[in-house]
């Protein structure tokens, strides 16, 4: 497991090495959960990626201790929140006296595969995230108040729904109606912002595998989101993470749930097309 650190550090040290070994997944690139679910943590890059040959999960960039937390669902602290999600699934809320389970009688298993294709374009041509779908259902079907975008309730329920897609390949649509949103996201990804004048690509494309002070830069893949982070002991959503990144480069973050982050969520997810959904993952 720790091998990846060495290998990727070597990437940074010698350009020749990058070309030589980037396409080969290391023998330690397999994540096995509960001893029976094998997750491939590296894949050939989707064709739209111009500068990377292989996409790799953030799991590979973590320490052995953090990696092992994700290899057993009892050890994985995310499951405290998945349990909260199960309680919320059954909880009656709003004027209609309904819970999620009132309509979705087959349980959250009904949404197997959903997270792997989110965000997506709805029938009206608007880009929608899982969070927005949940809040729409809460307002329209349950007569309940929408939840805050990245707070515990929403993150827990999206973790429960995301868990149903664990082990499936990420496969977000980027063509057709999604194309303009994807282009917008790509533009944001490569646009330098903030006082430090860095774009997403500056760290997660040009320098992944390198230490940025004490942090090991990953490719910034979202296949494990929402993810439990040891630093704040809770579930973190993609938009909350984007916000954190923007603060780190001393930029003014866009709004969670806003058009910019939704487009960026689509683009970043598409960079992981072919990777395996790991939700709910553990990161530092």
């Amino acid at each position, binding site marked *: 497991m720790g091998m990846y650190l060495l290998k990727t550090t070597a990437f940074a040290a010698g350009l020749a090495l990058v070309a030589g070994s980037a396409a080969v997944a290391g023998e330690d690139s397999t994540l096995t959960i509960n001893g029976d679910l094998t997750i491939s943590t590296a894949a050939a890059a989707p064709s739209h990626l111009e500068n990377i040959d292989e996409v790799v999960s953030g799991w590979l960039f973590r320490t052995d201790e953090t990696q092992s937390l994700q290899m057993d669902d*009892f*050890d994985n*602290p995310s499951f*405290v929140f998945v*349990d*909260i999600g199960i309680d919320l699934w059954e909880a009656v809320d709003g004027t209609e006296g309904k819970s999620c389970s009132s309509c979705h009688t087959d349980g959250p298993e009904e949404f197997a595969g959903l997270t792997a294709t989110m965000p997506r374009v709805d029938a009206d041509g608007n880009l929608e995230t899982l969070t927005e779908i949940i809040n729409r259902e809460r307002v329209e079907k349950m007569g309940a108040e929408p939840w805050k975008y990245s707070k515990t309730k929403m993150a827990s329920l999206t973790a429960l729904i995301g868990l149903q897609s664990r082990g499936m390949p990420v496969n977000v649509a980027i063509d057709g109606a999604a194309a303009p949103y994807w282009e917008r996201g790509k533009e944001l990804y490569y646009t330098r912002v903030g006082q430090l004048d860095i774009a997403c690509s500056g760290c997660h494309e040009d320098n992944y595998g390198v230490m940025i002070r004490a942090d090991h830069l990953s490719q910034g893949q979202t296949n494990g989101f929402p993810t439990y982070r040891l630093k704040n*002991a809770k579930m973190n959503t993609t938009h909350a993470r984007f916000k954190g990144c923007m603060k780190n480069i001393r930029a003014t973050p866009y709004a969670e749930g806003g058009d910019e982050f939704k487009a960026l969520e689509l683009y970043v997810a598409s960079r992981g097309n072919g990777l395996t959904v790991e939700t709910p993952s553990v990161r530092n």
Partner: protein
Amino acid sequence: MASGVKPRVKTPKKATAGEAFTIKTLISHKMESGQRKDKKTGELIPRSIINRFTCEFNGTSVIDISIEPAVSTNPYFQFDAVVQEAGDMVFTWYDDDGSVYDTTKSVAIG
């Protein structure tokens, strides 16, 4: 009673008599240390933690832990035990507010 408290225990369904097996336990609890201040009022937030955790097997103490405020949220304990016969393992957590949470797991010999 603190909210969202839920004990979880993982034991093997079957153990071999005389051979050690691993028990994992976790209780979801916010473990308020008593050192933090309310940001709005400046008042100290009262301590509210799990202060003791025990495990008993057929009435015999397996482990008895006293927990202090420095232990972080959702305390997790993992330990090994050896049993000679089948029986029930009783896990008990004691909350500062007087609440007691317990859960029981049967261990078979096979």
